[in-house]
């Protein structure tokens, strides 16, 4: 009977193949479910393997004793020092300039807010080479502002300051976007409660809003730091590639690839470790932030 129904519906005879279907509708479901799970697992493994293999290769192709030896290479030391110092300076600058901007965009409406918002996000999608040319056109010796600065004896392009300017340009959206979300997540009743209790807007900002949004701000700052550390395209166009002056870690990897691969691998490994730490810290802080918001 069931065979007839199936053969009518699917246009098959009630013989061999149908018997399988008749015997085990439950089994068929279970087989399909298993096949689906296996397929998904394979897809996951492929995707994760695609990401993990290059990272693992860096570790496998980098014997520990070579890494330790290469760590003392002047090129590595200079690049590491320059990258860490410029990225730290960039992060502090982005936090100081970006926090008020993020707060204003989170809490207030003003004409042209949408345009300002899009402008803040622009460096994220702008190709790094374009960012480099744009910075040159603005701050280079013949640039719109750089022309006047040059007249005052201030030169930015192809200096360490240019590295910082390029890093600020590309990393600021990462902080400002995250900071804005963190400020938006602070319940307005907290601010209102503080003000009815006698706190000024500034006192409320520093004692209520900032501490509640703090984890989100830190995670934004870490992301900006990581983006600065990995910055390559805009830096090489706007600041050049001079050891000790503008040769940051990504630039040193690019240079070393043409000569000493060990140096390139060692620098790459350091960047991978820092990136991994950044992800762990950001995830932890973000989770804490959302727990606070939920509570």
């Amino acid at each position, binding site marked *: 009977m069931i065979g007839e129904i199936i053969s009518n519906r699917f246009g098959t005879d009630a013989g061999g193949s149908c018997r399988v279907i008749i015997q085990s509708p439950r089994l068929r479901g279970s087989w399909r479910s298993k096949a689906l799970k296996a397929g998904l697992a394979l897809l996951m493994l492929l995707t994760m393997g695609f990401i993990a293999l290059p990272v693992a290769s860096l570790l496998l192709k980098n014997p520990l004793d070579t890494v330790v030896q290469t760590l003392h290479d002047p090129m590595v030391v200079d690049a590491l020092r320059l990258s860490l110092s410029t990225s730290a300076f960039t992060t502090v600058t982005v936090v100081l300039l970006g926090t008020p901007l993020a707060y204003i965009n989170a809490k207030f409406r003003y004409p042209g807010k949408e345009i300002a918002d899009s402008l803040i996000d622009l460096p994220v999608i702008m190709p790094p080479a374009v960012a480099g040319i744009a910075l040159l056109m603005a701050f280079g010796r013949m640039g719109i502002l750089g022309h006047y600065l040059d007249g005052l004896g201030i030169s930015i392009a192809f200096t360490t300051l240019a590295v910082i300017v390029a890093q600020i340009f590309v990393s600021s959206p990462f902080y400002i976007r995250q900071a804005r979300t963190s400020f938006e997540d602070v319940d307005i009743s907290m601010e209102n409660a503080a003000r*009815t209790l*006698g*706190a000024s807007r500034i006192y409320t900002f520093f004692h209520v809003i900032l*501490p509640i949004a703090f984890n989100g701000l830190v995670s934004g700052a870490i992301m900006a730091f990581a983006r600065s550390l990995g910055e390559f395209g805009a830096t090489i166009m706007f600041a050049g590639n001079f050891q000790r002056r503008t040769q940051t870690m990504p630039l040193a990897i690019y240079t070393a690839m043409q000569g000493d691969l060990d140096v390139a691998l060692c620098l790459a490994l350091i960047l991978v470790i820092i990136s991994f730490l950044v992800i762990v810290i950001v995830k932890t802080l973000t989770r804490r932030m959302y727990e606070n918001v939920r509570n």
Partner: protein
Amino acid sequence: MLEIDVKKRLRDFDLQVKLRIAEGEILMLVGDNGCGKTTLLNLIAGLQSPDFGRIALGGRTLFDSELKENMIPEERNIGYVFQSYALFPHMSVYDNVAFGLRARGLSRREIELLVKEHLDEAGLWDIRKAKAIDISGGQKQRVALARALIIEPDLLLLDEPLSALDVRCQAAMRRDLREKIHACQVPSIIVTHDLRDVACIGDRACLLESGKIALTGGPDEAMSWGAQMPFGREENGERIELKEKNREMN
């Protein structure tokens, strides 16, 4: 004495209220969701501004559209207990209660004395070091009230102070709330949906409908409003009409 005569255009209607509340009087403000109760509290506290009118408290003008006066919230000296309590989650119970005193720049010694007194009175001294997010609903309500009372406000505003508590806790809190508010001897407005609150806490009640005061009376008169008026509230996804509540009480 609190005197209010304000008008504000809201999305669906005009909020237009004229009220006088004497020193030590507790006015219960009841009405349907979205009828303008919380907005009225915000206008008084300075968190929103009326379009026209005047608000005066104990001889001080808080808002006057003709004189273009609009005192900022931090200068109004109003104790406001928010519906969500709005306790600062990153601070301890002690720091929450001390917040208003610190914002006023009191000395550490003065703050310690006052906070201890208020926490002792509210039975919160033992949990003074607990984070505000880690305490129970009843404790949160007491912390929020202590935080509002410690600044010695000239007016108390409470937005559904008992709605977040379970029924057993509500009954105990009603008595507690009335005693504490009466002890302050300042005008008070309590927003509520529950006629039991009106009966147990209030001296007078106003029914707000679409931004206008539809009925005013004593707590006893307010008990009959539930039988006449259709307003009610959502409770566990179910609409509880005050009519039903009234029947339960009788």
